[in-house]
């Protein structure tokens, strides 16, 4: 039995190890190396347990291919984040690097549990665990005024969202009596649907919308992305999105009967989110804030896939969110390198990057274009699958609006790429790029182009995961 939940246990032990390391004066480099080493072990263990299958703790905790693959992505994401937080990180984090890693690992633990929780209380608590750790991580840059402000905003909006979710759930719970999602699905089959249940369900979704930064609760994203340090923002933007999608996938699978014919509201939410994200992103002058709005828009596209309540919709969303992780992380990596070099994350900081770091600017360009949904890259293929599953349900206008949105997104992504390519840099000498960053850039370029042109491997994996999820 232990082997099944080995990844969770190991992550917790690693987190505790880093907690203890805070007491001994261990240098930052060793901590960084051990962090990298631990996350690699984590990945291997998950790979080892990828094909296991089982139901534990009286049916509240499911280990299957879907949950294990989500954990694998989370572990890989964590590895990327730690490898990005190298020695040139802000010194407030460097001072208590042990706690920083502790919070990262515990947040990752929360997300892992989130993906295999089958019952509301476990699900909600692991969601709260990952949110609370992120509240602290956002506020980690103690010497900066804006990170405290971002932290407090993040916390309050999170608190209100979770309070509303609990209220929504209390109403739903009174109908079904049992907290496990399976009971809800069976209960809802033959139960006359009245208005309170539906309203309760919408309120129930607010915490998950908050997690994915979907419209009603997405206003925190710009301030938090800008306020937090770039590593933490990268973590929030990529890994927590994957977890959010995983939990929504699971919820929508079980809540399908209730929502069979009521997805109009969710489509409206996704359109609003897309348009809001894209329209405001056009204005932004600061990179991280721009990426915040772009991630809101991307969340809108993902919601379209989720809301289709059919296998193809869900598998394409999973495909898209994985691709999104790689694309977004590449962009954040480049921003991080530029911020470490220039100290500012303004749009103009990227000026003349193509002269000073051709590889980085190429990977940035490809990632941005792929985020914008430009064909040969993986972003387009992801959108293509999502929108073809949407159109299979006959939502032509939704698809047209989505495509027009991605046209607007191409505009502001090109605004960023233009800084790198069209302007001459101030300093002449080449930017020094460490080997791991270079390796990652090559990986991301290959991933974006190959998966864009020949998406079969990633798509088959996504479909297999969804089969396990639904099956």
């Amino acid at each position: 039995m232990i082997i099944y939940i080995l990844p969770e246990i190991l992550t917790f032990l690693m987190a505790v190890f880093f907690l203890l390391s805070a007491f001994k004066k261990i240098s930052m480099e060793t901590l960084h190396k051990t962090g990298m080493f631990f996350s690699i072990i984590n990945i291997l263990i998950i790979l080892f347990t990828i094909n296991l299958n089982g139901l534990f703790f009286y049916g509240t905790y499911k280990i299957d291919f879907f949950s294990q693959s989500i954990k694998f992505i989370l572990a890989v994401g964590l590895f990327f984040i730690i490898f990005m937080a190298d020695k040139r990180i802000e010194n407030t984090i460097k001072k208590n690097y042990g706690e920083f890693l502790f919070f990262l690992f515990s947040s990752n633990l929360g997300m892992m549990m989130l993906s295999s929780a089958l019952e509301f209380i476990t699900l909600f608590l692991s969601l709260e665990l990952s949110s609370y750790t992120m509240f602290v991580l956002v506020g980690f840059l103690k010497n900066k005024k804006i990170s405290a402000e971002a932290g407090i905003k993040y916390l309050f909006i999170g608190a209100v969202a979770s309070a509303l979710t609990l209220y929504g759930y209390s109403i739903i719970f009174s109908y079904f009596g049992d907290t496990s999602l399976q009971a809800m699905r069976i209960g809802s089959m033959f139960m006359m649907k009245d208005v309170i249940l539906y309203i309760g369900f919408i309120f129930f979704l607010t915490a998950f919308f908050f997690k994915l930064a979907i419209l009603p609760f997405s206003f925190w994203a710009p301030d938090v992305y800008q306020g937090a340090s770039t590593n933490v923002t990268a973590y929030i933007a990529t890994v927590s999105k994957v977890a959010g999608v995983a939990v929504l996938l699971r919820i929508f699978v079980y809540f399908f009967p209730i929502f069979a014919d009521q997805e109009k509201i969710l489509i409206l939410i996704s359109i609003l989110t897309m348009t809001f994200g894209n329209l405001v992103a056009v204005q932004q002058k600061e990179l991280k804030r721009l990426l915040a709005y772009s991630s809101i828009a991307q969340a809108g596209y993902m919601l379209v896939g989720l809301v289709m309540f059919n296998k193809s919709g869900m598998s394409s969303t999973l495909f898209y969110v994985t691709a999104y992780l790689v694309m977004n992380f590449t962009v954040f990596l480049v921003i991080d390198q530029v911020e470490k070099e220039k100290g500012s994350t303004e749009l103009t900081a990227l000026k003349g990057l193509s002269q000073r770091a051709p590889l980085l600017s190429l990977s940035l360009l490809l990632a941005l274009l792929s985020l914008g949904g430009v064909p040969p890259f993986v972003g387009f293929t992801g959108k293509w699958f999502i929108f073809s599953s949407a159109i299979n349900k006959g939502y032509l206008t939704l698809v047209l609006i989505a495509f027009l949105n991605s046209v607007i997104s191409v505009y502001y992504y090109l605004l960023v790429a233009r800084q790198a390519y069209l302007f001459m840099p101030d300093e002449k000498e080449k930017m020094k790029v460490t080997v791991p960053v270079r390796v990652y850039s090559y990986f991301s370029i290959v991933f974006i182009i190959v998966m864009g042109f020949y998406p079969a491997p990633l798509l088959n994996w996504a479909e297999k995961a969804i089969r396990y999820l639904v099956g």
Partner: protein
Amino acid sequence: MSENIKLATWIVLCPFISLLLIGAITRSYKKLSALVAILAISISTILATILYFKNLYGLTPQVHYFEWLITDYFSLKFGILVDSLSIGMIMVVCIVSLLVHIYSWGYMEGEAGLSRYYAWLSLFSWAMLVFVVSPTLLQAFFGWELVGAASFLLIGFWYYKPEAAQAARKAFVMTRFGDFGFFVGLLILLVVVGNVDFHVLNKLGTNMGVSPKLITMTALFIFMGIMGKSAQFPLHAWLPDAMEGPTPVSALIHAATMVAAGIYLIARAFGFFSASPFAMEFIAAVGILTSFVAATIALVQNDVKKIMAYSTISQLGLMVAALGAGGYKAGVFHLFSHAFFKALLFLCAGSLIHHFHTNDMWEMAEKGGVRKMKITITTLIIGSLALAGCPPFAGFFSKDAILVAFEMNGKHTFMYITLLISFLTTYYSFRMIFVLLSPEKEHSHSHGHEGDHHGHGHDSPANMTIPLIILAVFSVLFGFVDTPLMNGYFDKFLLNKHEVEHLHWSVMIKSFVVFLAGISFAYVQFAGKTGYREGFAEKIGWLKALLVNKYYVDDFYFILVRGLVYPFASILNWIDRKVINDTGVNGSGNIVIFSGRFISSLMNGLLQRYLGTSLVILFILVFLWQLI
């Protein structure tokens, strides 16, 4: 492929081969490319003469096609048509072209772009021959356009001269405007009839399928093209300006061949045109009007080439009128004879200009020494006599044929107008002769006197004068072709009509009297010792102004382009920039930007505003959801 067709194909191909050779290989060696061009055109001429002598007494039309373009309900064919009319025209084109090629050897000595010049001449000859042998209206249009392009290139040969460039542009655009009519007529025929072969077109009047109204419309459209190319009244303004080009070019293109293309086309499609009486009336009227207008303007011209240009327009008007009146043989006969003596006149003018380096006849007169140029002046006089219609010369017989045609077809008023025009023609041609021959002021006025000292009079080199002599011979002898002397050979050749026509003495006498009146009137005004400077037209104030300004046609076009076309274009451009681009495209772009700016100003960082908006949106969604 019958013998004739093979010959005809080779005649057409020779200039094309020379064009390719010059273009590809001999571009940089001027002399060599000149030789290649002359060689090619001489081969064509020899073959043409062989073709002619093989079919001395005319032949039934032989046609050979090859598929050029297949579309669903008809196939567009190219090919070679050989019949008496086309043989005659080939002969004329080849002979004149050959002589002009030889003449240019001398005239264009030392020109920078000589190989380019000969390339364009070969292009022109090829295009003209393609046009002449074309069995279908489409191929005619094909040759027609190429001829227009060649004339543009040749007029603009000295492109560094702004006036030449302006003239070339005007010529091309105006003929192109005419071609628009031709193209529309062609399109309608292609769509309605489907097959535009000439023998089909000529029999169009008979087949019931096609409504007469339609024939008239297409005939008028095609005639619009002819008006452009053969410089009929409204669209004639480009021909006088086209004199900017080298004189051999003017001789070949703007006297003998290109401008005659329109006449040839009417002759070729005579059956089609005569199918609609209204069209024939219109053509005749336009012809006679052009002829009269051009003749009057020629009275006041001082530039030697301009006089010739207006006389060409006037003679073309006559031919068009003749054909319009139904005189098929008359029009064609005058076309051939006019080609020879007008080419002769132009080449003489060319040798004068070459010698005196000025176009103005008064300056030539002052410089004196015109008499020294023995051959040039004698051939000039022969040419003028032919043009004026003096009995033994070609002009007399061809103009007489036209007068007879008017007579026969009952167009008496036209006949009298033609007589008036031939009076004017005689007057202005001999006005030029007498001005040139008039002695200088200070010397004794007897016009045979040698002794003008400063004229270094020697004639143009051999290669310029020989063509003059040949053309002079043609101008003299060609007239007799139609007379009983050679028992109506021309009728037999052209229409293979065998009975010999008796001479119409009454018409001949009238035209001779008019010729005498004209020449004496000119003599009195110019050749006399007083040596007046103005003719009768220049004396009358308003007439002089009208004629010098060429009936204000040029100004009309100037106003049309400046006042109408440019403003319309700039309005459209303004619409494109402001309306479609700035408001339409940028407008939608700005909507996106401003709405984005508005929302981002909403997000002003206040935590409680975020929470407020989130909850408001949430409740709105919930209420909205209950309603939909």
